[in-house]
């Protein structure tokens, strides 16, 4: 099932005028996706929350200057997210989150045994994704988790679509060797 959040121009223009309702709507539409993208990359819930908040602060600051001009709002937003994740790694040395800690963070509540099994599988996948080079992580996330199209990913990463396809297949192949 596609989870694309199609956002109409009217909503964006209202948000550009700092309309509270429109900005609140944009927050509701994107907060989970942004958090998920960030969390997969940073691996710590607290950091993911900080970066997610920073994303919306930056959106608020820069939305007035947003012009579509071939760049959809969603792609513009994910560029911000991507830049802030990069800033996060620049400002803080990347640390490895042990698997048991990660499980504790993401699964605080007791679950049925089968659900825990699935969770462990997800956590294992996440750990393997985080071992990938950064460019592969981005591709894996944007393509297979967020289900963005190659055109959208091309706009976010500012790379040709052909290169995106190549990166996808390489990233997936690399991930398979870890799983």
């Amino acid at each position, binding site marked *: 099932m596609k*989870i694309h959040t199609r956002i109409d121009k009217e909503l964006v223009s209202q948000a*550009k*005028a*700092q309309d*509270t309702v429109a*900005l*609140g709507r944009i*927050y*509701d539409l994107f*907060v*989970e996706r942004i*958090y*998920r993208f960030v*969390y*997969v990359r940073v691996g710590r*819930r607290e950091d*993911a*929350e900080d970066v*997610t*908040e920073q994303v*919306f*602060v930056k959106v*608020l600051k820069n939305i*007035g200057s947003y012009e579509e001009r071939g760049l959809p709002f969603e792609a513009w937003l994910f560029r911000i997210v991507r830049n802030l994740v990069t800033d996060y790694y620049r400002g803080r040395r990347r640390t490895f989150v042990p698997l048991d800690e990660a499980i504790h963070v*993401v*699964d605080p509540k007791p679950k049925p045994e089968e659900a825990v099994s*699935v*969770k462990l*599988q*997800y*956590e294992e*996948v*996440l750990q393997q994704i985080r071992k990938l080079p950064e460019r592969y992580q981005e591709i*894996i996330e944007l393509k*297979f*988790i*967020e*289900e963005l199209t190659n055109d959208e990913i091309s706009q976010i990463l500012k790379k040709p679509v052909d290169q995106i396809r190549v990166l996808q297949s390489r990233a*997936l192949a690399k*991930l*398979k*060797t870890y*799983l």
Partner: protein
Amino acid sequence: MKPTEDAIGILAGLRTSEALAPSARFKKNARIRFLNRIEPVKGVAHTKSMAVAVAFRFALLGILAVVLIGESLVYVAGFSAPGGILYPVKVATQKNIPSPEPTVAGSTGISPEESSPSATPTFHPTPVTVLGDTVPVIEAPAEFPANIPLLPKLPFP
């Protein structure tokens, strides 16, 4: 090694996994903080009134320009000769100038006979009394002497 389809399926499952979802508390609090940061943008919020103000200024400037150009045109047209480009303007504007009714006597006290072109103007010198003595009025010469020097002779060359 798992098949590619499995890997893609697991990745897709991550999307709906609660493990990757933000907590409800964070979502709520971050939303409040986000909306509290919103400030009205002057340049955007008042776009309509600003547009009206700008339009009004342009309208004023336009009116001023039309008036200045019109006045200048009329002024320049005043010097134009028949056949000139601006001569019609001159005629049109001069027609609009109200001219007084051509009265024969007017307020000058000249009789209609005197004001007629055929009448010869006459001069009636009146003696003037100065300190009790009557001073005759010297009549001006009929024609001004042609050889009268304009400047007096100076004592040096």
